[in-house]
């Protein structure tokens, strides 16, 4: 008899701090991209408030570099940023679902170009929500209101697309996040179908996983997916306020609810606000909640993930989660039990 070894996710650290008017920290980060040198680019949605709309650049060691972008429709600005990714040319690509455009920046955040036209014809986009470069340098755009994935050149020239509206295999219902694996297979978080779909690099359906529910292995409105070098699949189970890990055959490994700690940036804030620091000595961040609603529970427990919108794997194999409504990143690392 053989015993299957299960992988385990270990909590590593928390990076971040609520900064709703800019500066070191985040305000509702909704996606991130990790440069080969480990720098994390987190794009902040900052709805309503809008002063915090920007990209913040940091690293897992709490280093803060700078920020770029702001609220607006001008070159280099965005109003509804949803996705960010690095290209093989080291450029940064940001999707805006309200302006229906992709903006291109250099690594320092200087505006280079923009493209995109709203519509449903090939090459037009409607609500871009996810971006990912393939191994051969083509840009996959999750064209979510058109329920399709478009393959474009980095300059926005249409190449091909796959997917239509529906529930059958290969069809989508408001897809969101995207990733590729070492074989260049494509994974799509098929948000309102409560599943992840896997396609070959040329867009042929391979398989899919997920059924709606709150049990282990079930999904509720998954918003993003990430695959590590060994093929383990991580799903931002947005509606269940957790991240789940599966092996490459979709065997459930573990689910994490979040266990954030006070980051150095947050500690700096508490150090300069002694009344809060003092009251916090009596603060129990993990209370036993009296609700079954994951979203409500997350609103009451500071350490939990609250709208874990996007996930990425860094060069060291660490899982970085955008803990959107808590304005921070929670970091985990896989280990075999």
């Amino acid at each position, binding site marked *: 008899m053989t015993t299957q070894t299960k992988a385990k996710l270990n909590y590593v650290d928390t990076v971040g701090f609520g900064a709703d008017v800019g500066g070191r920290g985040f305000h509702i980060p909704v996606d991130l991209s990790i440069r080969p040198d480990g720098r994390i680019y987190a794009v902040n949605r900052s709805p*309503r408030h809008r002063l915090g709309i920007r990209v913040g650049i940091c690293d897992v060691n709490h280093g803060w570099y700078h920020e770029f972008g702001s609220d607006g429709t001008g070159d280099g600005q965005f109003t509804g940023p949803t996705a960010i990714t690095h290209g093989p040319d080291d450029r940064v690509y940001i999707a805006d679902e309200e302006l229906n455009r992709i903006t291109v920046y250099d690594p320092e955040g200087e505006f280079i170009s923009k493209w995109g036209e709203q519509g449903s014809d090939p090459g037009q986009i409607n609500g871009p929500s996810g971006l990912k470069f393939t191994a051969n340098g083509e840009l996959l755009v999750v064209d979510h209101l058109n329920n399709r994935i478009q393959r474009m050149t980095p300059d926005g020239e249409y190449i091909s697309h796959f997917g239509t509206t529906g529930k059958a295999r290969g069809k989508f219902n408001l897809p969101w996040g995207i990733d590729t694996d070492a074989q260049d297979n494509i994974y799509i978080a098929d948000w309102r179908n409560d599943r992840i779909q896997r396609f070959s690099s040329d867009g042929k359906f391979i398989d899919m996983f997920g059924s709606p529910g709150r049990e282990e292995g079930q999904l509720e409105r998954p918003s993003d997916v990430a695959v590590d070098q060994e093929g383990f699949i991580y799903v931002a189970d947005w509606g269940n306020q957790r991240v789940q890990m599966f092996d490459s055959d979709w065997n459930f490994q573990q689910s994490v609810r979040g266990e954030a700690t006070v*980051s150095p940036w947050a500690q700096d804030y508490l150090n300069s606000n002694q009344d809060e620091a003092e009251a916090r000595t009596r603060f129990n961040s993990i209370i036993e909640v009296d609700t079954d609603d994951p979203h409500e529970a997350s609103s009451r427990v500071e350490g939990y993930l609250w709208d874990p919108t996007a996930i990425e794997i860094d060069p060291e194999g660490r899982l970085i989660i955008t803990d959107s*409504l808590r304005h921070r990143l929670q970091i985990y690392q896989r280990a075999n039990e």
Partner: protein
Amino acid sequence: MTTTESSTDQSLVAHLLRRAAFGGTTQELDHFANLKYEKAVDELLNAQDTKSIPQDVIRRYHIDQSDLRTRPSSSGNWLYQMVTTNAPFPEKVNLFWHRVFATAQTKLIQGKAMSTQLDMLREFGLGKFDELLLQLSKNPAMLMFLDNQDNHKGSINENYGREILELFSMGVGNYTEEDIKECSRAFTGWTVENTDYMTLKMRNNTMRPYGYVNWQFKFDPEDHDDGEKTFLGETGNFNGEDIIALICKNPATAGFVARHLYHYFVADEFPVPQWPHFEPKDPAAIKVMTDAYFESGYSIKAMLRALFLSDSFKSQASWNARVKSPIELIVGTVRLAGGYDGPSQDVYEHITASGYMGQDIFAPPSVEGWMGGADWISTGSMVQRVNFAGSVIGNLDNTGVVALISKIKSDAGSSSSSESLVRSCLKNLGNLEVSDETLVGLVQFTINATLRSSTEKIPSANARPDQNASNTSDQAIASLLQLIVSTREYQFV
């Protein structure tokens, strides 16, 4: 007004929908008019929402309505529900309770707590009053709003103990100052988790370091005064639940709740502070409801059912006798214009407009809520009301308005007169009834607009009243609709 075994007069149905909902489209009016009145009432009272925009969709596109930090986010989220639900009665009841159990995000800072309170009202607002009062007393937003986290064993804070008696259940004159103290003692230890930190965060008004943490009720036995108390003439080691039981069996509570319901659903009463000094305007209506209260074991829904079936409610004297609150005006108008077919930034414009008209949802002016009645109308608010309603109902870029105009033209017929076109508009705006003077003005406007549409000439003041209006342009009908929602009559409910 006529009701038969199988149908109900449209005007009565329109009255019912204005009061128990947010008015009705012609489809809704036709549907309920085809029912016996009692059945129409029951269907309205027991409808289940199957149509409102799902919260996950709203939260994806309005991420601010996921953490609900700001007031436009929390109140806008409620507006979505009010506009898109196909079970509007519970939302109307939620508005009623929000007015009675006035709680303000302006003090609490975090909108999530308000949203959680709304969820509680949605679940218990039509149930038994003792259960509702218990849930209210455990509701973190209410506890923090009325400082019950500062109500300690041996050092009471009377704020909640006073208001639960004065404003939420019995009314002034039905208890003593000593009862307030004893009531407050019974609610000691009713607080929220992490009391100190949460109180400080509320006071400091800061989302740092990691956003607001929503509150959760906590009973602290160490801080609870378990000693003997005398309340409303009875003595025992009462806790909060016992106090609520004593309150709810008291006839004064039945009368107070009934008067509030009458005030909101039938006709404007005196302002609440004056109730101890004036008898209810309609004692018969109050009795119908207090009887239902006790017969049903304190059921709010039973009280309202009895009220809607009463002659007091059905009487034509109560039709169009109340000024629409800003939210009633906004929700009703937007629903007539087709509502929201998905997430839209319009929701923020609309909820902001409500504030300009004098009703900031989740920010009542005091613990007594909004006074309502004639207070809704001022020079400034009237301009806001007319501009808002006109901009929504006259927006031809809105597919809902285009569909409404198409229905109006269809109902008016292919060779309609200007008057029949006006009457079709009135019918499609919730069976709105207007004075003869208003009708003449609207018809004259239509004659002029029709002439303008067909000849592109300046209309004559002597245009013939039987001018065929079937070719009236959509723009002209939109203008007519704008004029109708600007009338005095449209301001009433």
